[in-house]
């Protein structure tokens, strides 16, 4: 029973991070290698706002989320916008460079030591007992809840929202979308801000649950595996991929070797690339975008 809960929590973390990859890839066909760093930045922003709004945890979280959205828009308008129409490699490397820059900045501003935003917010993280004797911490439960909420609203937004439909159109054919008067820059900026928003949300909740340090980057990188296993342009795929990867990882840790936890997602990723490069639910596209 505890295994099921562990899988659910890990799958929720992966799904919440993976939808950031999917959002950006679906709209602009760029893989954002800085996603882990951006979510880490979100968590550190929470750490800062926590000291500003010491007794209002909710307003601290809201302020940090707002700041992270601003960061996402800035990253797009200042950097990624110039990369439109460039080689894929150049765009990917730009995100890599952003990631390195952020990693350095975070250490310079907040130091490399492990931080605990939970204590800064003066909250506690009690462990709850579920049916069947399994235990789950409140923050881990919040992650599952947040993932469900985010995916629900994303589905609704892309299905019915005016801007959601514009985003889908831009993803399907950017040129035609522009011809129809859709503001591509606004759509891309929106995708980047939504992506950093969900990523930062994931980063904050992970940090509340288990402390905050540089290792969050690795979680962000591992979350690319579920996005690709499910199909890089499909949100349903990201959910399924997160479940599959989380299950495989938890079982590997439990039954084989804890050291495997950093490799299992990548092994699954390679297997998927060999068998079905476009993923479980992704659209089969001409993989010719060098």
């Amino acid at each position, binding site marked *: 029973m505890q295994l099921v809960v562990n899988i659910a929590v890990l799958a929720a973390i992966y799904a919440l991070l993976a939808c950031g990859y999917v959002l950006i890839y679906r709209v602009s*066909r760029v*893989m954002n290698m800085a996603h882990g760093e951006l979510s880490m930045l979100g968590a550190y922003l929470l750490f800062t706002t926590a000291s500003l709004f010491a007794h209002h945890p909710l307003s601290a979280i809201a302020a940090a989320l707002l700041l992270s959205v601003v960061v996402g828009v800035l990253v797009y308008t200042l*950097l990624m916008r*110039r*990369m439109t129409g*460039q080689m*894929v*490699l*150049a765009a*990917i*490397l*730009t995100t*890599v*460079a*952003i*990631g*390195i*820059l*952020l*990693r*350095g*900045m975070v*250490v*310079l501003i907040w*130091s*490399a030591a492990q931080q605990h935003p939970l204590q800064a917010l003066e909250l506690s993280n009690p462990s709850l007992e579920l049916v069947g004797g399994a235990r789950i911490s409140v923050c881990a439960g919040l992650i599952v809840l947040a993932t469900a909420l985010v995916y629900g609203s994303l589905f609704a937004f892309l299905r019915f929202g005016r801007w959601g439909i514009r985003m889908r159109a831009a993803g399907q054919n950017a040129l035609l979308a522009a011809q129809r008067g859709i503001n591509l820059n606004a759509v891309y900026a929106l995708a980047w801000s939504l992506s950093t928003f969900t990523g930062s949300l994931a980063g904050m909740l992970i940090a509340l649950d288990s402390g905050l340090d540089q290792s969050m980057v690795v979680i962000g*990188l591992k979350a*690319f*595996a579920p996005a*690709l296993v499910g199909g890089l342009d499909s949100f349903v795929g990201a959910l399924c991929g997160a479940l599959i990867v989380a299950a495989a990882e938890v079982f590997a840790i439990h039954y084989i070797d804890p*050291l*495997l936890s*950093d*490799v299992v997602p*990548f*092994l699954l*990723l*390679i297997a998927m*690339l*060999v068998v079905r*490069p476009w993923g479980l639910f992704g659209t089969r596209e001409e*993989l*010719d*975008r*060098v």
Partner: protein
Amino acid sequence: MSSQPRASGYFRTDYAQDFALIGTRFKLVSVIVFLLALAIFPFVASPFQLDLATQVFLASIGSLSLMLLTGFAGQISLGHAGLIAAGAFTVGILVREINAPFWITLPAAALVGAALGIVFGLPSLRLRGLYLAVSTLALHFVVIYAGGEYETRRGFSTGIMIDPPTVAGFAITNGRVWYFILLAAVAATLLISINLLRTRTGRAWRAIRAHETVAEALGIGIAAYKLLAFVISSAITALAGALFAYYRGFVSVEAFSLFLTIQYVAMVIAGGMGSLAGALLGAGFVTLFPYGIERVLLLLPEAQRYASVLFAVNYAAFGLVMLLFLMFEPAGLVGIWRRMQNYFLHWPYKHRPVAASRP
């Protein structure tokens, strides 16, 4: 190679001139002067400067091989650190397990590299661009995991010690000897690369990079040449890793992080895509960059305050410089060099004549 007409009116009139590595007397003189400077350097440099030079040489071998793969064959690889690790670990394991001498371990490392090259290259037959980058990245993690697993299983959790290689009973520990060995290795790699690019293989790679479908229509075996690019590049990279292991005398997975891969990619970018000279320049630039940053930081007031966050400053500055290159100088250091050259070639005019405007 790039055969732009020079302002001096140097034209090649027969095939021997076209094949010659060193075309003009000026080039010959400058090569000799450069080699002399390189030969004198270890006798006037401090041990620290000597170590820096050898580091640049090691990086040059790796960046040359990555340049062959990415700059000429057009295949993206984010698994370079994994290949270097593979070469280093081959040496470490062979030395620890069967106490093998270097004339067994070095070819073995090259063989392991070539075999891994096939593994890394297989996805390239089906995948391109982003997907290829991801698959090589994933393989990097698998190789690093295998190395870490070996370390913990055999009880070398802090790393594997490697004795210096011995030739006729003498152990090579002297920094100057290492300098010349690695200089020779870089020169050999450079010559191999230059000549490889002038053969059918090199032309096939460029055709694949320019346009795969057209290359196939021209009768080039895409699959074979792609795999060949991965195999050759990986074998050279693994050799660089093996030399690194011997030079440092110590192998540990911590040294081969994702950051190392990014550094090598940065060398290719900063140097200039599709240029061997760029690979060398980029290797020098990226290797010396952190030391330059350290120097600058120590000049600032309250230098001691920054000592503890030096690596963070390095990261931030490195990311910033990479961004600047990608945004404003995609042609890299070689691009800057060419622009300077052209400035003097066309002086006092600002632009080259339209008819001769070739890239």
